[in-house]
C-alpha cells in the first residue's frame, strides 16, 4: 500500500530547507524500494518544528520535526514510514497541544490538504459555502455576512457585510471584487499561509463576494515579495476555471466570475485600499481622498469590494455553517476568530487561530513559550509597523478590537512581534519614522515631511541635544501626523513612536517614572 508523506511547500518551511528534505525523502524511499507518495501541503503553522514531515496512518497523521536533510536516513532506519518512534517523533499531529488548543475555522484546511488539489479541497468541505450562496439572493448573502459579525481582518475592522451592502446597492454595468493581498506588516504572514496553503478558500470567498454584489471580475493584488504564493494561486485559479468554479457560468448558475492575480511592486502604502486601486489601474500608488468610498467609486471608477485575504477566506465557512455558527465565537463586538501570528523573539512562533478574547500573555507564554533568547520579554508590537508597543503591564489585555482601542493600541492584522530586554525603544521609535519616510506616497505633507523630521528629532533626543524641547517637539509632530495625515501610514506612525516614549521613557533619557501621556 502507498504511504502518503506530507512535506510543506509553504515558503517559511522552504526557508529552512523543506525542498531539500522533500528531495532527500523521495531519493531515500526510492533507494529502499518503498512505495510512498509525497504530498506538498501548506504549513500547519508550528514554524519552530519546520520542516515538519507527516506520514498518514489509519489513526491519523503522525508528525516528525524539525527534520533536516541529515535526519532523513535515520528516519527511514527507524521505519518512520510506518510511524515508528524516532527522536523527532511528535505523535499524532492533531493531538499536539499547540494545535489542539486552537479554534481553526479559516485555517481548517491549511497544512491538511494539498493546496492545489481541487478534489482534496472539495473532500474537506470546500465549495459548500458557494453552493449555499448560489441558492440565495445577493441581499441574503450580504445579510448572512453582516449577521456573522465579520469585520475586516486587514486591520481597519470595518464590518464586511456593510461594505458589501454598499456595493450591492450601487447600479453599475461593471463591479469589481479586489482582494488586498499586499500583506506588508512586519510580523504578519497569515495571508501568505492561506494563499500558499489553501488558495481555494480565498477563491471561493471572492466568488461568493462577486455573486453577492453582482461583480464579475476579481483581482488579487499580491505583494511581489511572495513568489511562491503567486505560483500556488495561479495553479489553483487554473484548476477552478477548468472545473467550472470560475468563469462565465459559475457552477451552471448563469453568473460569471473571473479572477486574476496582479503583482504589486514593493510599496507598503499600496496596502491602503485607495492606493492599491491606483496601483491596480497602473498608476503610482498615491492615496485617494475619501469620499468617494471605493465601494461606490473604486477600481476604474466602478463600485468595488476591497477586502483583505483573511476577511474573504472567512466567508466560505460562514456561508457553509451559517452566520450564527461564526458569531458564536468571540467577545463583545469582535465576533469569530482571529488568526494570530507570533513573530520576532519567541521560542515557538507560528499561526494561532483563536476566538477573540485570549490575552496577549497567553499567546506570548502559553503558545509562544517565552522569548527565544531566554531573556525577559520587554515589549511587544501588535498590528504591524503602525501598531503600538505594549509593555509587560498591558500583557493581560484581551485580543479584542475595542479593548485594544481603550489602551491606545490596535490589533491590526493580528501580528505580534516580541522583543527581549536588549531592545532600545528610542531606536524603534526612530525606525517607525524612518519606515514611514521610506514608504510615504508623498501626497500629504504631515506624512511626507513629518516622517523625515521625526527621524531627525529622535536623533537629537538620542544624542541629548535640547532634550526637553525635542521631547515636546516629537509629541507636537506626532499630533500633527495623527490628525493631519491622509491615510493610516502617516496617521498611525505616532502609535509606535508615542507608545515607545510613554511606556519606555528611560530609553529616551527620561526618568522611568515619567508616564506623561
Amino acid at each position, binding site marked *: 500500500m502507498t504511504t502518503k508523506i506530507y512535506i510543506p511547500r509553504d515558503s517559511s518551511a522552504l*526557508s529552512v530547507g523543506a525542498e531539500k528534505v522533500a528531495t532527500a525523502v523521495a531519493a531515500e524511499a526510492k533507494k529502499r524500494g518503498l512505495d510512498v507518495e509525497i504530498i506538498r501541503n501548506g504549513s500547519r503553522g508550528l514554524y519552530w518544528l519546520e520542516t515538519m514531515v507527516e506520514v498518514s496512518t489509519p489513526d491519523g497523521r503522525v508528525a516528525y520535526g524539525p527534520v533536516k536533510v541529515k535526519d532523513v536516513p535515520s528516519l527511514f532506519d527507524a521505519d518512520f514510514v510506518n510511524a515508528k518512534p524516532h527522536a523527532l517523533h511528535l505523535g499524532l499531529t492533531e493531538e499536539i497541544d499547540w494545535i489542539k488548543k486552537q479554534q481553526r475555522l479559516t485555517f481548517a484546511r491549511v497544512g491538511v490538504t494539498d493546496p492545489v488539489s481541487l478534489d482534496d479541497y472539495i473532500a474537506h468541505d470546500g465549495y459548500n459555502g458557494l453552493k449555499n450562496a448560489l441558492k440565495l439572493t445577493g441581499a441574503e448573502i450580504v445579510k448572512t455576512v453582516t449577521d456573522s459579525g465579520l469585520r475586516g481582518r486587514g486591520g481597519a475592522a470595518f464590518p464586511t457585510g456593510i461594505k458589501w451592502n454598499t456595493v450591492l446597492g450601487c447600479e453599475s454595468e461593471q463591479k469589481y471584487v479586489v482582494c488586498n493581498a499586499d500583506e506588508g506588516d512586519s510580523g504578519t504572514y497569515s495571508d501568505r499561509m492561506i494563499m500558499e496553503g489553501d488558495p481555494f478558500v480565498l477563491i471561493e470567498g471572492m466568488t461568493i463576494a462577486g455573486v453577492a454584489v453582482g461583480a464579475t471580475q476579481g483581482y488579487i493584488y499580491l505583494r511581489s515579495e511572495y513568489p511562491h504564493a503567486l505560483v500556488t494561486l495561479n495553479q489553483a485559479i487554473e484548476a477552478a476555471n477548468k472545473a467550472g468554479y470560475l468563469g462565465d457560468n459559475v457552477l451552471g448558475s448563469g453568473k460569471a466570475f473571473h479572477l486574476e492575480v496582479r503583482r504589486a511592486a514593493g510599496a507598503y502604502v499600496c496596502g491602503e485600499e485607495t492606493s492599491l486601486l491606483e496601483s491596480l489601474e497602473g498608476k503610482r500608488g498615491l492615496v485617494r481622498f475619501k469620499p468617494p468610498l471605493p465601494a461606490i467609486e473604486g477600481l476604474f471608477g466602478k463600485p468595488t469590494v476591497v477586502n483583505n485575504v483573511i476577511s474573504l477566506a472567512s466567508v466560505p465557512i460562514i456561508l457553509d455553517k451559517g452566520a450564527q455558527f461564526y458569531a458564536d465565537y468571540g467577545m463583545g463586538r469582535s465576533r469569530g476568530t482571529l488568526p494570530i501570528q507570533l513573530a520576532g523573539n519567541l521560542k515557538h512562533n507560528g499561526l494561532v487561530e483563536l476566538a477573540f478574547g485570549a490575552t496577549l500573555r497567553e499567546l506570548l507564554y502559553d503558545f509562544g513559550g517565552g522569548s527565544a533568547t531566554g531573556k525577559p520579554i520587554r515589549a511587544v508590537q501588535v498590528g504591524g509597523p503602525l501598531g503600538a508597543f505594549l509593555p509587560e503591564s498591558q500583557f493581560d489585555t484581551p485580543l479584542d478590537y475595542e479593548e485594544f482601542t481603550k489602551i491606545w493600541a490596535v490589533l491590526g492584522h493580528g501580528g505580534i512581534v516580541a522583543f527581549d530586554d536588549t531592545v532600545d525603544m528610542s531606536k524603534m521609535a526612530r525606525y517607525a519614522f524612518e519606515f514611514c519616510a521610506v514608504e510615504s506616497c508623498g501626497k500629504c505633507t504631515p506624512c511626507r515631511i513629518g516622517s523625515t523630521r521625526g527621524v531627525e528629532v529622535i536623533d537629537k533626543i538620542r544624542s541629548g541635544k535640547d532634550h526637553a524641547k525635542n521631547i515636546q517637539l516629537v509629541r507636537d509632530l506626532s499630533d500633527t501626523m495623527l490628525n493631519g495625515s491622509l491615510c493610516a501610514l502617516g496617521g498611525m506612525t505616532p502609535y509606535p513612536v508615542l507608545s515607545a516614549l510613554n511606556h519606555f521613557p528611560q530609553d529616551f533619557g527620561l526618568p522611568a517614572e515619567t508616564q506623561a501621556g
Partner: protein
Amino acid sequence: MYIIVALYNCNDSRFGDISLPDSNTPQEDMNAVINRLITEHQHRPGALLPLLHAIQDSIGYVPEAAYPQISKALALSVAEVHGVVTFYHHFRTHKPGRNVMQICRAESCQAMGSEVLEAHAKKCMNIDYHQTTEDNAITLEAVYCLGNCALSPSVMMNDEIYGRVSPSDLDALIAEARA
C-alpha cells in the same frame, strides 16, 4: 534614508532610440523583447504594472530607454511612466548583479538580530544597499518584510527565502552566489 530622488533630464539622448551600453543583451534583441511584451500586455486593464513586471522579469530591469515605447503604447506621457517605475521599490532602471540579495529590515527580523546581519553583509561584500559587488555577483537591497517573521531573521536571494539566517549562513549564500 533610502528614498531615491531620481533626477531626470528630458533632453537626455537615452530617451530617443534604445541604446544600452550597460547591457549584455544585443540592442535588437532587447527592442524586440520589449515590443513583444508591449503587444502582449497593452490591452489589459491597468496594463502598466503587469508590463513593467514582464519587462523586468525578462531582462532584469526596466531600461529608461524603453520609456518612449511604453508611453506611446499605453497613451501615457514619458513622465508618467518614469513616475510609476520610480515610485515602486521593486522596479529598477539599471541591470543588477547576477544575483539580488535582499535583507529584511523590519521589526520581527530586528528583534532577532538582523542589524548584525546587515552590517556583516555590507562588510563582507564591501558594498552598501542598492550597490553591486565588484565582481558583479551580488546586488544588495533592503526589504521590509518577507512574511517569514516566524523564522527571523530572513534573507531573500533572487526568488528563494532563507530563514533564521546567521552570519555564517550568509557567508555560504555569498560564496554560492560568487561561485
